[in-house]
């Protein structure tokens, strides 16, 4: 499947080769190889503590791998200087598990933050862009609210708007539906699908939520003990007779 993507789309925007990462004695990633093509969404599944979030942080360069390579749009990011890394980061959006909104800034200031620091956009144009982004995530009525005054689902929406502020072509989502009720989770999934259609980004979604993964991702990768033990569609996961995969699908893992 990975080879097919390369043939149809050229160099995929995200290519990971032989990624290793340990924290002390604990091996978290033990040789991960993954590729994500433009317009494709890959869901990374696995038990808690298997390094899914660490994988995303390595891709955006806030964690360094012990070994292996991370290529973004054909450029190796491990070991490059901060200026070049930031140029690449401007093409990437990241939604944190707890949204990580700046709690001293309002909703609109949070979304304006990447624009203010990375573009020369005039104030009025920036304000229009912020309003447009917040409208696209259904938060147009809450511009002046503080993050502490809105719900977890709304914080995720604002986080998503902030992640999309610089019009990225790679989107990394860390547990977008974690801690949300099923209805809000469904709304966030719908929103992610809508945004993917509009922006045609390469997306990687880390999640425990099988229903969410099935809805938003075309391809899934299951992490176990530092390795990708299965990569394919949701149907491939369901068909697998591997004990861990079947346990995971039955939520027994």
């Amino acid at each position, binding site marked *: 499947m990975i080879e097919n993507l390369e043939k149809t789309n050229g160099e995929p925007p995200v290519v990971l080769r032989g990624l290793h990462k340990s924290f002390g004695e604990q091996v978290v990633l033990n040789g991960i190889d993954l590729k994500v093509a433009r317009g494709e969404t890959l869901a990374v599944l696995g038990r808690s503590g298997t390094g899914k979030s660490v994988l995303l*942080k390595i891709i*955006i360069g*806030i964690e360094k791998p012990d070994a292996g390579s991370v290529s973004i749009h054909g450029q190796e990011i491990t070991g490059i200087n*901060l200026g070049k890394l*930031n*140029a690449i*980061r*401007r093409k*990437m959006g*990241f939604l*944190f*598990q*707890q949204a*990580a*909104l*700046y*709690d001293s800034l309002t909703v609109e200031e949070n979304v304006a*933050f*990447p624009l203010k*620091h*990375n573009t020369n956009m005039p104030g009025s144009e920036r304000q229009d862009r912020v309003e447009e982004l917040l409208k696209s995530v259904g938060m147009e009525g809450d511009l002046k609210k503080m993050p502490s005054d809105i719900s977890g689902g709304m914080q995720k929406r604002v986080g998503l708007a*902030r992640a999309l502020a*610089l019009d990225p072509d790679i989107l990394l989502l860390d547990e977008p539906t974690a801690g949300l009720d099923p209805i809000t989770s469904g709304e966030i999934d719908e929103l992610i699908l809508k945004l993917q259609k509009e922006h045609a980004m390469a997306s990687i979604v880390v999640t425990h939520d099988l229903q969410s993964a099935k809805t938003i991702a075309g391809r899934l990768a299951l992490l176990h003990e530092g390795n990708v033990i299965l990569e394919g569609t949701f149907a491939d996961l369901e068909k697998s007779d591997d004990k861990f995969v079947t346990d995971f699908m039955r939520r027994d893992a």
Partner: protein
Amino acid sequence: MSSTASSNTALINGFFEWFGELGLFSWQVLRAAVTPPFEFRELARQIDEIGSKSFPLVALAGAAIGAILALETRDSLVRFGASSLLPAAVVYSIIHEIGPVVTGLVVCGRVGAGIGAELGSMKVTEQIDAIEVSAVNPYRLLAATRILACILVLPLLTLAADFCGVVMAWVADAMVDPITFHQFIHNGFSVFGFSDFLPPTFKTAVFGLIIGLVACFQGMRTRGGTEGVGRTATNSVVLSSLFVILADVIMVKLIVMFFP
């Protein structure tokens, strides 16, 4: 026995590790501070936050110390029949040592804890990571601005503490032995030269560097949720106070050497 030896080794390793990490942190902040884009707006906000909001506490502490010093010194000088020297003794003590040190320690408590807790909370809630993924250098935006604000603001706060201390020393003195403010100031500054005044005031810029650097460093390496944030706030105050006192000892020696 061997467990004591290994715990001592861990302690020594931790000590050198802390200084090593502080050195790397300082280098990253310095590099971020001298390369554009410069965060002037954030710097102005921090000067306001650290400076104007510390002013009442620093002024109050300076005033209290001035009054106490005048009352305590009077007793001692009267015994030797030298009460006329009181303005000079009090003004010299306040401007030379007590004003700068009290300002440094008050700011350690208020600003050190504030910066440590603020950056610590941002760290554990991934807000610093969020700044980084937005292609913004957190060393420039968060650390360099706060450290520079501390460096700029400390000498100004020291002047405020000195002024309030001298005024309250006059009030306390005048209540016992009536003297005009003009006469008090004239007597107080009669033994003073400009070189006596500048080094002690500007040495507090070094206190500012220490407070900002230690608090930002502790804040940005916070681990372990709310407990970690609490630990960071405490460590920021304790370590910055300790280093301010040590730096003061060294700088007093240097000032005596270079401005005899």
